[in-house]
């Protein structure tokens, strides 16, 4: 009975509303076919005043538009009209990058407004114009030249960090004292991303928790004592992504420093370890959930890498150092921990180091490796095919082989390649699995041509060989390169070669 009454009531109220709407429509003299949006209705009925359409949007949408503007343009809108004046302060993001705010950063003293002046003014006004102070979700400060960390410390302390989710401070080239983070930051219950670089000194409290922190980046920062980093990592129960750049020169004041990464939740790790093997610093990594590992640096006898069965993608850039045979053994041990990897990228220096330890007893087999990439200043002096073959022999299911020329990954080893002797077996994967080969940055030099020739000869099921030329390759030489490539013997009948834009089978 009661439900029937409610239903009747609803029906009646809907009927009433429908009648009301019809009346209003009649009054407006708008037919149902030409029904205009409220925005355009305003524009039409007030043509005399020429009322601006954009101002009929609510504050939240105008603020959302300002979010997509660089800070200078956003602040400039404060002069448009009284409605617009406070809107830029409502954007919950502050991105203060010296390069974007000052014309010539390295000659700042000649500029009328230096970064410190502009950033101070922005922070002060944001806290003064709107009441209450609008929440800030993301704060980025990037200060390249003549950085005064003290000011950044001030701005951070003047900001309400209660709602801060993302903090990114990169304070480079500072002759001044580094800043420490305000203590309240270590107890933030909202922080999800924390990225700190250079002139920042980490002195964490002995016990704290960052319950929401998922992404942490520490780039060449200094630490108060040898356990500072461990303390921070232990305080992050849901950490997914960690990037650490450790340079021993920055650690010199510490007698000992432990980089112990024991984070059960970690999925991504990027470790840049510019610590000479002769130093006293060590790293230990034990991350069972890790899926992606990027390592760049030196290996020391006491460095420990364990529990990495889930790593599916890795980038390895081991740096060259003395005592190459020991280093090679360590390199194999390191790479061996990643034996389940599906996609791997090695710098050519790493490949050369591994060559030196090629008689290593426990060299691993990469059963799941499907894609292998060599990246670096390729094939300068040495016989490339041997290093490649060595690794291919350990990747029986490999499908894709990639070469990429890059000048940023160190120059080649001084030690001569030991692999020049001995017969050349064709790796198993070349006969049965490799279907795609890519070469980016081809210059057409002798070593490269030889490498391509060997691959085409050995790869029985190759479908695609795609070569893209390097910018240094003179276009006039391209036809002769193409001619040579075409002549190479191909083991695979269906193999198609693509050289830049030209395909030929």
């Amino acid at each position, binding site marked *: 009975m009661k439900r029937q009454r409610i239903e009747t009531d609803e029906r009646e109220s809907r009927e009433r509303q429908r009648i009301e709407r019809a009346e209003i429509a009649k009054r407006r003299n708008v037919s149902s076919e030409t029904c205009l949006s409220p925005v355009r209705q305003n524009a039409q009925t007030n043509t005399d005043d020429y009322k601006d*359409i*954009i101002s009929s*949007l609510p504050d939240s949408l105008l603020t959302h538009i300002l979010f997509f*503007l660089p800070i200078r343009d956003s*602040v400039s809108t404060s002069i448009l009209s009284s409605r617009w004046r406070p809107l830029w302060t409502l954007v919950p993001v502050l991105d203060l990058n010296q390069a974007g705010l000052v014309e010539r950063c390295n000659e700042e003293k000649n500029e009328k407004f230096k970064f410190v002046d502009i950033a101070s003014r922005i922070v002060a006004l944001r806290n003064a114009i709107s009441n209450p102070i609008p929440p800030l979700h993301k704060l980025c400060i990037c200060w390249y030249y003549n950085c005064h960390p003290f000011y950044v410390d001030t701005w951070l302390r003047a900001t309400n960090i209660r709602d801060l989710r993302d903090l990114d401070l990169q304070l480079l080239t500072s002759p001044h004292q580094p800043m420490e983070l305000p203590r309240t930051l270590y107890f933030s219950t909202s922080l999800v991303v924390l990225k700190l670089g250079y002139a920042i000194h980490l002195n964490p409290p002995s016990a704290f928790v960052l319950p929401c922190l998922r992404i942490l980046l520490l780039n060449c920062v200094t630490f108060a004592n040898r356990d500072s980093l461990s303390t921070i990592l232990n305080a992050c129960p849901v950490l997914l992504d960690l990037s650490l750049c450790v340079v021993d020169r920055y650690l010199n004041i510490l007698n000992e420093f432990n980089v112990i990464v024991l984070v059960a939740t970690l999925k991504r790790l990027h470790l840049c370890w510019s610590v000479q093997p002769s130093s006293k610093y060590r790293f230990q990594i034990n991350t069972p959930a890790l899926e992606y590992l990027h390592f760049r640096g030196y290996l020391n006898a006491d460095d420990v890498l364990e529990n990495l069965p889930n790593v599916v993608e890795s980038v390895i850039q081991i740096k060259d150092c003395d005592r190459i045979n020991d280093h090679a053994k360590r390199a194999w041990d390191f790479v061996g921990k990643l034996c389940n990897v599906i996609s791997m990228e090695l710098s050519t220096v790493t490949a050369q180091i591994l060559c030196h330890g090629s008689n290593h007893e426990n060299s691993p087999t990469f059963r799941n490796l499907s894609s292998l990439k060599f990246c670096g200043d390729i094939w300068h002096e040495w016989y490339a095919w041997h290093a490649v073959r060595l690794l291919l022999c350990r990747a029986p299911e490999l499908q894709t082989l990639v070469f990429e020329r890059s000048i940023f990954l160190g120059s080649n080893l001084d030690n001569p390649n030991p692999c020049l002797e001995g017969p050349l077996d064709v790796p198993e994967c070349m006969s049965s699995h490799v279907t795609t080969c890519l070469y980016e940055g081809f210059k057409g030099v002798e070593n490269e041509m030889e490498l391509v020739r060997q691959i085409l000869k050995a790869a029985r099921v190759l479908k695609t060989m795609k070569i893209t030329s390097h910018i240094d390759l003179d276009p006039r030489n391209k036809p002769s390169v193409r001619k040579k490539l075409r002549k190479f013997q191909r083991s695979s009948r269906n193999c198609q070669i693509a050289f830049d834009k030209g395909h030929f089978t």
Partner: protein
Amino acid sequence: MALELKSSDNKIFEVEELVAVQSETIKSLVEDGCADNVIPLPNVDSKTLELVLDWCKNHVDMKLDEEKLKEYEDKFIEVDQAVLYDLLLAANYLNIKDLLNRACQKVADMLKGKTPEQIRETLNIVNDFSPEEEEEIRKENLWAFEE
């Protein structure tokens, strides 16, 4: 499964659920079981709704082709101001994040690098400051108004 959406001018659009639920607003209605009948959208007219549904459909179709999708988005957003604001309001009301962001980005691009006078002209904003008030704001943010 198909849904029926009704625009403010009483035009009915039949659309696949997969396409329509790109709108978080519609998605909530579906999840709460309120989408059996026609869903009224009194804040969106038929012309705008047609555009919005085109956006949604293409985002389902081209989901895996990033390049093609970007090409489509760039072309889609080349509309005049009035249509752009209608799209903005509709994307806001229907809670379609990528459309909202793209439309806001487009308006922002219109404002970037322009002087206040130029912006006022482009957007037909009326300056309601007195000359003294305007001068005061200019002083407040002198660094931003330098050439």
